[in-house]
């Protein structure tokens, strides 16, 4: 009932915005060096120092987030830790703490609802807000952005800052938030759109990745001016409906709304870098089974079953491959997922190379329940699983494990493994 009322209010607000306002006012809020800022907030002795947030084992990991100080010294996101250390020997590597980031993300998104009910969580550290009704005009929008920055400081701490972009649509708002970092507020009005676009690279715009950038370059398009001048029909011939989007984007036009609906995930997956590169199939099986159990538990907790499993392998030389299998009988049983994933891995694995990382993910998800088996053994397995889920709900993810997984240990503070939080 409460949810229905809220949906009605939001629909009413959206209609009001459409009828009463000439253009929308959208904020894009991008937390600056998010994970690193949270760590600097928690530990003040890290402030002013170059730090990099890594996975569970810093020596076999990448820099997930570099602090502002580290970025100034050349450390980039997704750089391997050894490369980052080579560039910046004073870099302090900190193992990431997903629980902490998850809670702070919840905290600032809750705060955004003080300003408008139209909030879209775009990623763990980015959100869109439609503040057309609350701001009324650009002056009001800048005032609200300042207020929001103050509230952020009160709720999350002074080290956790955000860059805010203000524009008539999500595309320009996101582009604007990139302009001044850290802690900037950048306004791009409709009449400033062309100037803003002409001051950036094609790939700076959300929706044009490096591959698309190269394809555009191949067509002789190297900037937004050239994209505007390129015939729309030829763009459509080349890229189908995406060609229309490109043409509109070149003028800073975009119509997508701030979506408040939480979408179901398209896939559920885990990957894990092994403690050492290995040729040992038993060790691989153990880690793969552990991940399949984790994936299956998350699916059952959220009421999903899957009709497809993908597995991925990365070798010591950083090459890798993956394969997907689609099947008819939906499942959320970790052992079943493992059987399929291991079968796939055996088909694709290059036995001459040591394995560095394994990954598994399920897709083709639906909310239907897994079909009841005709066989008594499988029925028993399902009822055991249901009992184990109750134990895990009560006592957490470490409450039980399969005996075959006892010889291995998933490191704590890995990307989500071993935790009961939602991230």
């Amino acid at each position, binding site marked *: 009932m409460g949810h229905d009322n809220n949906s009605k209010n939001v629909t009413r607000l959206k209609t009001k915005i459409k009828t009463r306002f000439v253009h929308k006012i959208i904020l894009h809020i991008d937390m600056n060096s998010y994970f690193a800022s949270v760590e600097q907030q928690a530990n003040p002795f*890290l402030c002013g120092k170059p730090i990099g947030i890594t996975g569970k084992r810093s020596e076999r990991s990448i820099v997930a987030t570099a602090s502002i100080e580290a970025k100034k010294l050349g450390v980039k996101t997704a750089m391997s830790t050894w490369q980052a250390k080579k560039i910046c020997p004073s870099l302090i590597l900190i193992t990431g703490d997903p629980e902490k980031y998850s809670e702070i993300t919840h905290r600032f998104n809750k705060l955004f609802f003080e300003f408008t009910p139209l909030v879209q969580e775009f990623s763990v550290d980015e959100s869109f807000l439609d503040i057309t009704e609350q701001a009324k005009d650009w002056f009001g929008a800048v005032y609200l952005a300042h207020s929001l920055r103050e509230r952020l400081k009160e709720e999350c701490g002074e080290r956790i800052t955000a860059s805010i972009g203000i524009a008539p649509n999500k595309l320009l708002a996101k582009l604007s938030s990139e302009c001044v970092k850290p802690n900037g507020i950048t306004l791009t009005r409709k009449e400033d759109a062309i100037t803003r676009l002409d001051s950036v690279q094609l790939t700076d715009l959300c929706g044009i990745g490096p591959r698309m950038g190269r394809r555009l370059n191949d067509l002789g398009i190297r900037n937004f001016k050239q994209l505007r001048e390129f015939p729309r029909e030829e763009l459509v011939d080349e890229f189908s409906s995406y060609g229309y989007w490109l043409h509109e984007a070149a003028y800073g036009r975009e119509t997508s709304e701030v979506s408040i609906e939480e979408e179901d995930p398209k896939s559920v997956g885990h990957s894990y870098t092994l403690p050492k590169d290995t040729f040992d199939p038993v060790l691989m099986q153990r880690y793969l089974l552990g991940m399949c159990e984790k994936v299956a538990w998350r699916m059952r907790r959220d009421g999903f079953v899957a009709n497809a499993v993908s597995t991925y392998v990365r070798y010591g030389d950083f090459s890798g491959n993956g394969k997907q299998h689609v099947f008819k009988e939906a499942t959320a049983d970790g052992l079943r997922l493992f059987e399929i994933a291991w079968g796939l891995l055996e088909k694709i694995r290059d036995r001459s190379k040591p394995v560095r990382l394994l990954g598994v993910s399920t897709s083709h998800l639906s909310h239907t329940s897994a079909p009841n088996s005709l066989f008594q053994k499988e029925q028993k397995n399902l009822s055991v699983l249901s009992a184990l889920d109750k134990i895990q709900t009560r006592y957490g993810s470490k409450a039980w494990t399969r005996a075959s997984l006892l010889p291995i240990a998933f490191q704590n503070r890995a990307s989500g493994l071993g935790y009961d939080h939602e991230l």
Partner: protein
Amino acid sequence: MHNILHDSVDVLATFADRRVRPLHMRWNDRNYSIKNVNLVHTAREGQKKIFYFSVSDIANYFKLRLDTETLEWHLVEVYSS
């Protein structure tokens, strides 16, 4: 130097305005006066709620874990500048 540990510690704390604030900690036969509470976050272990306090004195950062079921405090991280 950054250390991950799980040492049981004694903590003197205030419970006021629905907030917990650790004031002093005794660890390895030494008393530490907590100067700042920098960040507080929670986590779930099943249905159990755990509070984490990221605190500091003049020379060290400590991360304290409070189990709300057993009311036990543990020191789980130390960073000395």
